[in-house]
Every structure is written in C-alpha cells, then in structure tokens.
C-alpha cells in the first residue's frame, strides 16, 4: 500500500510522527464529540431542562470545533510537506534531465518527460496529500473508537469488528472482477474513446473525400456505442463502492436493531446505546474516505513510480577525465572500436560499430548515408549525447572512455536540424554560449550570419522577444540565429551540424550557404547531411551504412572509386535534366 521509497524522502519520518500525534488527538475529540452529544440527547430524552444540556452541549461544540481545527492543521502540515517534497522531486527530475537528458530523451521522448515533470508532479503531490492522512486516519481513529465502544457495549464492539474484514474482502473480490472486465474491453475502449478526436482531426480529409456530411451519423453511433460499453463497465466498477456503502450502512442498521432489542430487554441504559450509534458512522468514515480517493492515490502512486524510475536510472555526470586543451590545426581525435546499441523510440534498435576514425585540425568532414544508416547516431556520439558501450577514444593523445567530457563539450557548437531558440530576446539567444558577450561582439556575429536585414525591420531589434521554439520566425532566420551564435562563440572550434538545411526551401538554403562557408574557417566541421551539394565543401567524407562506416576518404577519391559513395549519390539524385 505504501511505497518504501517514500521513507527515503526528507522529512517523511518526522511528518508521520507529527501526523500520528495529531490523528490520535483527533480520535479523542471525535470520541468526546460523540460522548457529549449522546449525553445531551439522553438528558433531552429524560425531559430535563435546557440548563442540564448546556454543559454537554458546549463540550460537544468544543470537541466538534477542535476536531475540525485539528483537521485543518493536519491538512496544512500535509499540504506543506506535499508541496515541498514534490517540488524537490521536480528539481531532481530537471537536474536529471540536464545530466542525462539527451540519452533519456531518445529513450523516453520529450512528451513523456514534460508530462512527468508537470502532470506527474501534480499527481504525486495529490498522492502525498491523500496517502498519509488517510492511512493514518484509518489506522488510528477506528481502533480508538472501537476500544471505547467495547467498554460501553461488548456486543456492538463485536459487530463492528466483524464488518471491517467483510468490507475489505468484498471490495477486493469486486475490485478484481471489475478489473478483469475492464481489461477485457480496454483495447476496444480506447479506440472508441479516441474516435471523436480522430474524426475531428480527420475532418479536412473527410471533406476532401466528400464523406464529411455522411460521417456525422457515424459520430453519434460510435459515441453511443462508447456510452453502452462504458455503462457496462461502470455497472461492475462501482459495485465495490456499493459493497462498502451497503455493508457500512447495513452495519449501522443492524447495530441500531441490536441496541434496540437490548434496551427492551433492559440489559443496559440508553447512554451506551446512543453513544455507540453515534460513533458507528465515525468508525466507518476513515475507511470510506480511503476508498473514495483510492483511484486518485493509485494514479499518484503510478506517477511517483514512473518518476522514481527515471531518477533511479544510472546517470553519468559529465566526465572530467579530459584535461583542458585547445583545439587547433594540429589537434586530433582518434576513435577505434566504438560500439553500442540502444533501444530508440518506437522500439527500433539503433546500433553503431566504428572500427576506426580520425578527425583532425580544421578539416571539414561530411557524414552521409541514407536514413537509418547511423549518421545522426555517430555525430551524437561524438557530441557526447550518446554514450558508447565500449570505445577507445584519444583526444589529443589523452585517452577517454566517451565524449561526454566537460572539456570536450565546451569546445563544441551544435547546430541541429530544427534549431533551438529559448524564450528570451534575440540578443540573449545569440549570446547563448557566451552570455557575457558585449553588444559590439553580438552585432559583429549578427552581421556575419547575414541577419542585418531581418533585424532592421523588427521594431525592437535585438530586444525582440522570441522563443517558444522560435515560433513566428521563419526556418531560414532561425538557422541564421544559430549561425550568429556559432560566430560569437569563437572559443569553440568544433562545429557539429545535423542536417541543418533539411527543412528549408531551396532558395533559402542557397542564401544560407555563404555565411556557413565563412563559419567553416578555423573550425573542425562535422556535417551530417542528405543534401549533396555540401559534399563539395568537404575535405573528407564518411559514408555510413547500417551503423558502420561503408567508405571514407576525400570526395575526389571516393568519386573515382565505384563504391558505396557513388552508389548513394546516384540513388539520391534520381532522374536528371
């Protein structure tokens, strides 16, 4: 019921102690509330005057108020704890994303991580709020009341004791039945429940096909079918709540009857009977509360599990094996026997097996291959975003296990297929790698990237807010901002490109070529692309196929040789004018 890992969270043990104390107090005030209410009622029943009930009535009121005051305190403490702890978990999660984000994203997907860190955290917070209080209430309040009831009337005590295991047994049996019924229908069920959204999204298509009018009838039919199935499942699913309700109310009814018969037989006076009757609903209340929120706690528990799983994944901090160095024309990286396999999104296996590769000085190295050949995997491994299973890597003669090294990554500039612009001003985005750059330096970089025209028409110039993924800015300008970023980061001498022009139209690409070629100067360039014209700018080409290097060499040499390179180029070109 309660996850052991919860106790590892800071403050949990203290919270439980405080809650136990408070709940015990609550149990007693509940008891007093019932006791004094019963006293007042007995006095009224004996037709005594108002004065005689004032004393028990005031005590009842105090107990009632105290009870809810304790409840308020209880909620406050738990909510504070839940808020703080879930925030703490969110912090850990973000830290984790930073430390092993790139690997994790390729495994978990962006959407999943965002959902975990927002909705997931909300569910977890709710879970914390519910689980401690409800469990505490359930384990402390009923026993206290039960002991008191035993002192008042043993038969009632026994009745109440017997009902609880019965309730639990019924709920388990019915819960299982509902579960198996729901499982059996699950697949059909999700299709039906998503049908409407599917139809709305497909409406333009239906329109194009001339089917949209007739399809309206289908919407109703499917929706009604969904209703029918939901009702069928619901009928069983809420049976467990019914059982709980039924047994507890029936419990009270039986108790009332027993007490009535006992009173007739003169076995005990009115007070113990009345107090037992008043306390009986209170006795069942924690159990009912718990079952009402059972589903919410279940969701929270699953969310917490998912988050713990993410957090428990081994994460490799950036390595510090690599001593600082400067990349210049004599520098070189050598990698031998680099190997790894991982499960990418959609369970597709991605693997890489590189025998030998050398990158040196200010060379320009093109990486080509058809999709799925391992281009991206290779450059992501070199960028330190993916960790090889085994590899023999030497950077300037220093051996390192992988490229996830602070002193390697701070030499890199990475230009992906879809540029990343964070929410902020254009200037801040350009100064991404050098937040302390002067305005003059930023302007120089902007000029080099050919952004002058674009900035001129913006009323707020460099202070224009962009972000949310750069929405509102064309793909070409986004790439230019990325280029300006790279121009400004002149202390980073290694450029890694991942198909930077794949999504651009041909004229925009044409216009981008000049500033890019300029950027190539004094840089080691590693350039993965589908676009053939870039090969002319490269000194060296790596042809990837099936996660392996099929061919490597200078473009001229590869062209002359009728191998993987020539074959790939011919396939890519297609028919010609």
């Amino acid at each position, binding site marked *: 019921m309660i996850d052991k890992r919860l106790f590892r969270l800071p403050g949990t043990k203290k919270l439980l102690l405080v809650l136990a104390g408070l709940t015990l107090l609550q149990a007693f005030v509940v008891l007093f509330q019932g006791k004094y209410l019963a006293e007042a009622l007995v006095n009224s029943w004996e037709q005594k005057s108002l004065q005689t009930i004032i004393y028990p009535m005031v005590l009842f009121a105090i107990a009632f108020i105290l009870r809810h005051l304790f409840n308020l305190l209880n909620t*406050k403490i738990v909510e504070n704890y839940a808020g703080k702890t879930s925030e703490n978990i969110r912090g850990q999660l973000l830290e984790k994303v*930073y430390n092993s*984000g790139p690997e994790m994203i390729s495994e978990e997907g*962006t959407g999943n991580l965002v959902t975990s860190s927002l909705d997931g955290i909300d569910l977890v917070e709710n879970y914390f709020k519910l689980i401690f209080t409800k469990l505490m209430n359930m384990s402390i309040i009923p026993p206290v009341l039960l002991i008191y009831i035993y002192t008042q009337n043993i038969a009632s005590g026994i009745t109440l004791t017997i009902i609880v295991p019965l309730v639990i047994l019924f709920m388990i049996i019915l819960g299982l039945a509902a579960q198996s019924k729901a499982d059996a229908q699950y697949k059909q069920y999700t299709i039906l429940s998503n049908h*409407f959204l599917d139809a709305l999204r497909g*409406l333009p298509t239906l329109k194009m096909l001339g089917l949209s009018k007739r399809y309206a009838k289908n919407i109703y039919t499917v929706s009604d079918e969904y209703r029918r199935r939901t009702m069928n499942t619901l009928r069983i699913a809420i049976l467990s709540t019914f059982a709980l309700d039924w047994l507890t*109310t029936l419990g009270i009814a039986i108790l009332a009857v027993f007490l009535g018969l006992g009173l007739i037989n003169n076995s005990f006076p*009115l007070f113990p009977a009345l107090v037992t009757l008043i306390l009986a609903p209170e006795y069942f209340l924690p159990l009912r509360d718990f079952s009402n929120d059972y589903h919410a706690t279940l969701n929270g528990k699953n969310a917490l599990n998912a988050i713990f799983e993410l957090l428990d994944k081994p994460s490799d901090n950036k390595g510090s094996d690599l001593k600082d160095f400067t990349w210049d024309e004599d520098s070189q990286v050598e990698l031998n026997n680099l190997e790894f396999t991982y499960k990418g999104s959609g369970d597709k296996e991605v693997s890489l097996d590189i025998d030998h590769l050398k990158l040196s000085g200010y060379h320009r190295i093109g990486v080509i291959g058809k999709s799925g050949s391992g281009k991206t995997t290779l450059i992501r491994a070199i960028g330190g975003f993916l960790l090889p299973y085994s590899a023999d890597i030497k950077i300037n003669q220093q051996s390192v296990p992988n490229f996830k090294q602070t002193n390697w990554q701070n030499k890199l500039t990475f230009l992906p297929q879809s540029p*990343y612009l964070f929410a902020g001003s254009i200037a801040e985005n350009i100064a991404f790698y050098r937040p302390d750059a002067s305005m003059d330096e930023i302007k120089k970089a902007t000029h080099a990237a050919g952004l002058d025209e674009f900035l001129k028409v913006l009323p707020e110039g460099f202070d224009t807010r962009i972000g949310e993924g750069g929405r509102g800015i064309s793909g*070409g300008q986004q790439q230019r901002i990325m280029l300006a970023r790279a121009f400004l980061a002149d202390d980073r001498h290694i450029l890694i490109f991942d198909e930077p022009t794949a999504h651009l139209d041909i004229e925009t690409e044409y216009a981008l070529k000049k500033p890019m070629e300029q950027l190539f100067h004094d840089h080691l360039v590693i350039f993965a692309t589908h676009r053939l014209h870039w090969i002319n700018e490269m000194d060296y080409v790596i042809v990837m196929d099936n996660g392996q290097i099929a061919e490597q060499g200078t473009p001229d040499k590869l062209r002359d040789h009728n191998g993987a390179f020539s074959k790939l180029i011919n396939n890519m070109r297609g028919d010609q004018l």
Partner: protein
Amino acid sequence: MNFFKTFKHDTWVKPYIKQYKGLLITALLLGLLTSFCAAALMFTSGYTIDKAATHPINILLIYIPILMTRAFGIGRPVFKYLERLKSHNWVLRVTSDLRTRLYKTLESDASFFSEYHKTGDIMGLLSEDISHLQNLYLRTIFPTVISYLLTIIASIALGIFNPSFGFFVFLLLFIEVFLVPLFSVSIESARRSYQKSVKSDLYVQLTDNIMGVDDWVISGRKDDFKKLTSQNIQNLNQSKNKSKAFRRNRDFGLQLIFAAIVICFLIFTNLTMTNNQVQANFVSAVVLAIFPLSDTIIPVSQGFEEWPQYRDSIERLNTIKPIPNNLPKQVTLDPKDFESISVDNITFEYDSNSPILIKNFTQKIKKGEKLALLGPSGIGKTTILQLILGDLSPQQGQISINDLDISQIQENRENIFSVLNQKPFLFNTTLMNNVRLGNEHKSDAEVKKALERVGLKPLIESLPEKYDTIVGENGSRFSGGEQERIALARILLQDAPIVLLDEPTVGLDPITENDLLETFFDVLKDKTIIWVTHHLQGITHVDHVVFMNSDAIEMEGSPEKLYQTNKHFKDLYQMDQGY
C-alpha cells in the same frame, strides 16, 4: 456575475438540460433519495433506540422502526449506486449529442481549417472541452441541484412543525450551499485562471527546454537551465498555496456553521420536544438525522470552485457558430468533361497583418498538365491550393474550371479534386478501411489493387494482419513515406481528374523521396497535377515550374528551358543535384 454572462447566450449547456428529461429527473431524484435515506437511517435508528429505552411491553411497538431502519440502510447504497449509473448514462447521452453537433458545426465551416493562424491543437482542445462539460454536470451541477432540493425540502419539513425555526435553519443552510460557494468562486476564479495560464506557459517552456537540452548541456550553463522555469514554477506554487489555504479555512468555516446548526437543533429539540415521552423519543432521531446532511452540503463549494475551468470551455464552444452557406447555385460537372483550370489575376490576403499576400497571380493549366510551384515557406503556396479548391475566395480575380467559377462546383468537389498533403491523415482503423474512404463503392479486390499500384503490396503482405492491420493513431504504425503511399492509394480510388500535392515529400530522405515521386507521377500520369514543393528533387516530372517570391512570380517555364536560359535556376538545380 460571470456565471450569468457566460450562460446568457449559451447554446451548449442550457438546451441540453431539457434533453432526455425522464432520465435526468430520475437521476436527480435518486440523488435526493440517497441523501434522504442517509438521514432517515439515522432518524429511524435514533428513534428505535429512544423508543426501546422506554421499555415498551410489546416488542412489536418498535417493529416498524426496526423495519424502516433496515429499509433505509439498504436504500441508501442502492439509490446511490443507481444514481451514479443514471447520471453517467444521461451525461454520456448528452455527450453523444454534443459531439455530433460540434462535428456538424465544424463540418459546415470550410474556412475553419484553412485559417493559417490556427496553430496548436485546436481539435484536441475542443474535444477536451466536451469532456469538461461532462464533469460540469457530474461534479458541479448535479450535486448542487441535489443539495438545493435537500435544503428546500428539509426547511419546509421543519417549517411545517415550526415556521420560524424552519426559516432560521433555511438561512443557515442557505449560507452553506449558496453564499459560501459564491464567495469562494469569486475569490478563486481569478486565481484559478491565473494558475491555468501559468501552467500552460510552463508546458511550452518545459517542452522547449527539454527539446533544447543538447544545447544547454554543451553550453555548460546548468544553473541557467534550471532557472528558466523556476520563476513560473514559483509563481504557480505561490498561487496554489493561497488557494489551498483558502480552501482549508473555508472548509473549517463551513464546519463551524454546521456546528451552529447542530447546536440549534439540540436547543430546539430540548425546548419544544420534552413535554412528554412520546415527543422526547424523537429528540435523538431529529438531531442525528442532520449529521449525514453535511456530506451533501459541504462539497457544494468545491464544485463551484471548478467553475473557471468549465467557463473557458463553455465560452470556447460558444464561439463556434455554424457558417451560413452562401454558395451560388451549384452546377454538376462531369469529371470527364474537365478541360482546364484558369487562375485569373487573383489577389488575396487574410488580413493586413498577415505576411501572406498573393498579388496578381495568373496561371492556366490544361487537362493532363503537371505544374510545380516553388517559393520560400510562408509565401502562400498552400494558400493558392486552398484558393483553387474554393476553401478561400480571392479578393480580386477569378478561379474557374472550364467556364465555371470554382464556387459553383463546391457541392461535389470530391469528384474533381484530390488532395495529398505533407501529413496525410489516416484514421485509426484498418488499412483497408482507410483506403476505401477514397471510394466506398470499390470492392476489396480494387482496394488491394490500388495498394499494389502504390507499391505497398510486399510490405502489407508481410504483416501478420495484412490488409486488416490497424494503422495506429495518426498512422503511426507506418513510416512517413508509407503513410504517403497509403494516402495515394486512397486518391487512386477517388479517381478525380485534378490532384493537388502539397509538399508531400518534405522531411523524407532523398532516396525515399525519389522513389515516392516516381510512384506519384507514374500512377497519376493521366491526371492534372499541381505540386507545391520546396526544392528541385524530381522536377523532371513536370511540364511547368513556377517560382514565387513575396512580390510576384520570379521565374517560370518548363524545367528544361529554364535550365538552359535562366542562370539562377541552373545554379539552384546544380546545388540540388550536388554539382
């Protein structure tokens, strides 16, 4: 009060309350009976005990109360169970109506899909709005109505015995079920809206940051990365903490009022019911009966508090109105008679803020011709396709098929035009069903034949479920190129003379792209094609190329001729080919 403003012109909630009236009344009645039984159980139990304590000589004297105690004890859970079933049934029935209506409304509004600025997942939002309405009924309206009925019935019942006490209790209950909820909604409404907007900002921010994590890792700016969202998270938490504190204090306040009610009952019963034993036997009954009422009364405020969330949904749905169809008299054009499309000097812009502007655009396309349209993104290439389809109308100029204005043939447009775009939509059903949407009268064999022509036969036959494979949400079971081919098969069945291709190969690698273009132009060789594309791959397939820029047509002509006479085209082509 924003309630009334929202509901004043509402057509999405109010009218449906009248639907399935019998079921609705049954559900509400059952809800009321549940609360009534809960109270009656305590009432009869209290009475049974009090009566028994007078030691009646004959046990039969308490036989009836005992029987009633049992009946109410069983009645409460049974009614509650039935109430939940009936209310869900009613809500789901209404949902089916709402869905059909939303669908029909959107269907009638052709421009809804073509407004280029409709970003984000508006369809997802609308479909969620409908589920919000379900919750509005189940979590707010039903419990509130039941608690109001209960308040009125309880007050009247008391009023019969003692009018002034009845009125007094009514006032206290009125505070509990009306004033406090109203007060909480007025306090929380702004806060909830604020929380909602911060949260949606956070969504965008977090998505962006997680997508950009590569860059942050390389930049080494770990603290800045964490700081990006911290401000919003802090704001959200502050506001949420205020909400929580408010809720705690409010619930405590509600309990205090409830305590006052109980005390009043204790005093009232002592003062008025202690004249003889017969009356006194009812004291416990009356006092105990009010305790279960708190279960019905206290949660009303909680239900009210969720109002802002529902309000947004109701308001959004109400902005969607059916568009009156003002098409001219429709003419039937036999697809076989199609001769030419002429786009005559059209000018179009969405509004003055939009970057898309089409000025004096003219083209004539004869039957069987293939035209490629190029230009930078955001220039209005897709808009031209929408104009040709008749989804948008130009401010100036005319588009006609043969001699007919495009607006005259909208009714059976699917016989004339097929469209294939970047991300063709596949329904989450079998392959067979998806393709057959092209023409529902085709036999299984013909559907299979179409799939064979687009080159999918080997792939499909290697799948365990073959033609009955479910394509998954948005066709996710298949790759981008395969999805295009499935959509192409659908178009083959549709067999319209004009095919509009809107960048169908964007984002595919060049080899897949080449193969796909080969297939397209092979199976569609008899058709008239207008093809929007972003580069020159496969340009040899067309007769005519048009390059647009923001002002006018930059260059046009047959690819062969342009290659020989136009330097810019030649440069672009050579770049594309990698020379």
